[in-house]
């Protein structure tokens, strides 16, 4: 190894030993959305791991190229599914991101963009305050006019927002209490999700109740920390994780789910994240162990009779659901069990749509290209609905479908099931 012999300084980029899980076989290449589009090794998982190794060994400086290739990763973890060697890519990229944040100075534009995202999105109150004027503008029918006036970067952000009138803001009444002996489930309402996708949260609670679960709520919901973890703000991510561990443990639920699969995966990994925490390591592990997936819970207890929905649907695999939690068949089984529903398989269903947490805000170009590819595949199915289990994907895919003026409805799995259960 060149660096060892040349005595170059080792840098703490990632857990160095983890890099050696990668045997450079290349089986991850085609599972990587950025490689799928860019076709270059630097923008592949194998290439990024190589880059991390070279950075750690001091063979490469952390320059704009290196930062660029690490930034461009969506953190979708499609490579983990493809990897035969069990490389913990998610952990590697999170650590590498933290290294970049600590040691690399970005352009002013980049810094501003990231600062806005970091300051607002994890805090529901701030996001609500920011969206309040937009809501009035939308009510007056002026949202398209506003979008047209804004510079491109901001216009794209506005385009991603779902119609705000459709966002159920207030906390609905708890679903009717089930048998007190039934297993208790808590739905983590998320940060952005509780503002922009509250109906998804409420629908999740409703279908769980319909399946006979006892739904409990957290006293107060804080961001799960995934946004920070994925963008290299490790310290704040740890703070959020600690808060959530305490609050989730206090719920005493038998199962934790989230309508956003990114949050579910983040919570499921608190155990690993806080493994060195003197106080919370044990508790974090047990909280992580209770994370489940909505479809698995519903299949376990079975749903009551659903009404007939004459339609065709296709299912998009949200990255952290399929690659993070390994859930692939459950949602499809549920959809197929609804009378009248015909499921059409989506080509490249598990390739990222470009949403990836706040990626579509910080890397709009790549995000847009992936959205185009995703929507091409969705349109090709000719389905009436495209169903998914992650609000971020909903916004991203719906925005692209709106741009194409395509008449395919985007809907969260929980809401689709709630629709089949209603009346």
């Amino acid at each position, binding site marked *: 190894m060149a660096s060892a012999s040349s005595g170059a300084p080792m840098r703490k980029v990632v857990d160095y030993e983890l890099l050696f899980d990668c045997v450079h076989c290349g089986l991850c290449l085609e599972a990587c959305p950025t490689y799928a589009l860019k076709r270059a090794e630097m923008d592949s998982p194998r290439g990024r791991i190589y880059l991390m190794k070279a950075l750690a060994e001091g063979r490469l400086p952390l320059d704009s190229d290196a930062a660029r290739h690490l930034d461009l990763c969506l953190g979708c973890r499609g490579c983990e599914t493809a990897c*035969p060697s069990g490389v913990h890519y998610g952990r590697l990229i999170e650590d590498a991101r933290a290294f970049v944040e600590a040691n690399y100075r970005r352009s002013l534009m980049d810094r501003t963009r990231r600062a806005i995202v970091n300051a607002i999105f994890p805090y529901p109150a701030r996001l609500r305050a920011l969206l309040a004027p937009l809501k009035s503008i939308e009510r007056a029918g002026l949202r398209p006019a506003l979008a047209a006036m804004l510079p491109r970067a901001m216009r794209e952000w506005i385009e991603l927002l779902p119609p705000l009138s459709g966002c159920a803001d207030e906390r609905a009444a708890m679903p009717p209490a089930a048998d007190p002996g039934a297993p208790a489930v808590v739905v983590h309402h998320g940060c952005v999700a509780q503002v922009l996708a509250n109906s998804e949260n409420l629908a999740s609670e409703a279908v769980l109740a319909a399946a006979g679960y006892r739904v409990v709520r957290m006293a107060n919901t804080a961001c799960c920390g995934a946004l920070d973890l994925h963008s290299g703000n490790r310290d704040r991510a740890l703070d959020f994780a600690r808060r959530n561990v305490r609050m989730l443990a206090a719920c005493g639920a038998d199962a934790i789910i989230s309508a956003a699969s990114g949050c579910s995966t983040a919570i499921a990994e608190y155990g690993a994240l806080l493994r060195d925490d003197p106080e919370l390591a044990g508790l974090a592990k047990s909280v992580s162990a209770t994370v489940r997936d909505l479809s698995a819970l519903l299949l376990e207890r079975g749903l009551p009779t659903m009404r007939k929905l004459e339609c065709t649907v296709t299912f998009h695999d949200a990255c952290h659901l399929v690659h993070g939690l390994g859930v692939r068949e459950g949602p499809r089984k549920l959809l197929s069990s609804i009378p009248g529903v015909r499921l059409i398989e989506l080509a490249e269903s598990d390739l990222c749509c470009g949403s990836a947490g706040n990626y579509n805000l910080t890397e709009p170009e790549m995000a847009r290209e992936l959205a185009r590819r995703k929507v091409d595949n969705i349109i090709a199915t000719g389905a009436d609905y495209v169903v998914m289990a992650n609000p971020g994907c909903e916004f991203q895919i719906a925005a692209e479908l709106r741009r194409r003026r395509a008449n395919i409805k985007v809907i969260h799995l929980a809401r689709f099931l709630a629709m089949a259960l209603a009346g």
Partner: protein
Amino acid sequence: MRADGFSSAYGCDNFVFPFGRGGFRDRGIRSENPSIIARATAGANAVSAICCAIVHGVSADVIGIAATPLDSRLVDELAAIVGRDGIVSRPSELKVYECDGWTVEKNSPDLLVMPRTTEQVSAVLKALWRRGLPFVPRGAGTGLSGGALPVNAPVMICTSKMNHILAIDLANRRVEVESGVVNLHVTNAIKRDGFFYAPDPSSQQACTIGGNIAENSGGPHTLKYGVTTNHVMGLTLVLADGEVVELGGWAEERCGYDLVGAVVGAEGTAGIVTRAVLKIVREPEDHRTLLATFADVEAATRAVSAIIAAGIVPGAIEMMDQLIIRAVEDAFHAGLPADAGAVLIIELDGLVAGLDECAARVTEIARSAGASEVRLARDEAERAGLWKARKRAFGAVGRLAPNYATQDGVVPRTRLPDILRVIGAVSKKYHLAIGNVFHAGDGNIHPIILYDERKPEEVRAAVEAGREILAACVEMGGSLTGEHGIGVEKQGEMPLLFSPEDLIAMTELRRVFDPMERSNPNKVIPRPGSCVEVAAPRRQVPI
């Protein structure tokens, strides 16, 4: 020593072929520029010089490799052809291209070009030709013999952007694809219609058809269906000077020399393949996949020979030894017997009628060879689980050690027990764990040698151990490679199998296509001296 008379004729960029244009258009070869046949004849004039050069050890830079440094004008010229996004020139970015799946040796290219079309490849190669620059072709970089390692080849041409399926003709059972198309994507495109592309290397989810053609790749199912060369009907090949030639085509039978056959397995030394017409195969009506458990590898290999001797040709017979079984079980929980000494995955395919009888017969043979259990996969999910375990076995081994080198030798099927004994002895001698997972049906072994690249003595031992195993393969009447190619990895072993005259004949054949040896130079044929000493430029890293 330098053969100056030879280099004055061949080292010159403006060499004019002494034969006229055209006149060589037939069904076999279509060529627009000076035909490669003309070159062959031209080359014949210099055959004695070549022989002399090889035997006496002329270094590569005399034979057409003029060391023109890369200048920014070249970069601009190439960028004008392929676009800025098709060029990588910064050293920090080129670092990731310093090796493929063979990680023992590393060397970065000075420039990477990613063309999108045959025309672009041709224009790029013309620009390189004018400057006398050699190049190395690369597909997905999953090769295991260092075929895509730059060795005195400053420019790398990567086919990853040429990834379109151009035509699907089910009636004639052909597809035409660009060479950067991923192997599995060919099957995915025709699966719905009940067809598949038979060669299925373990890396099929990432490796490209172009790479498969270079290495003449196989896979588990080649026992019954044949390797890549049996499925490539036609090729578009760009020669080192940028000339585009078409070899073969869509038709089944053709006359004349099999030039497609010469290019398949040439490891990129004939030029860059940009398109290929492939034969596709109808999915068999049904499968029966059996998992047979044995106490040791010897009993398992006895069963293999007995099955074939009984006149049964399964779709695949794959063997995994204990080390691999454990690695795979830890990784995928495929339900393999963790304490078994060896297992065979035997897949029978074909018409439904007779399949069950065949499975019963195989079960009986396996049992009499000593199988303690023979299990039939109950459904498609179980079958898929077994194949997933098998196909990803190499990677699963990555969980056992930081690095591994996968060897790829061939022995006559009946010598399998002998070679496995040798491998066991080699493992003890070098204190390195070696696992075995291979295509037992055709005697193609894949010992996986585990090592840690941070320990130079282990790297050296791994390379030595590999060499010893290959030497034993040749001694038993086998071959140096079943499907991974010679690349740089096994160059030094070529003289074990071939006489100097054989190697000269191969070089002459290569020079029919690439007289200046500019396409993937310093591969396959041992460079003078490389079998005794290690050339500095390519052995930058561990050794």
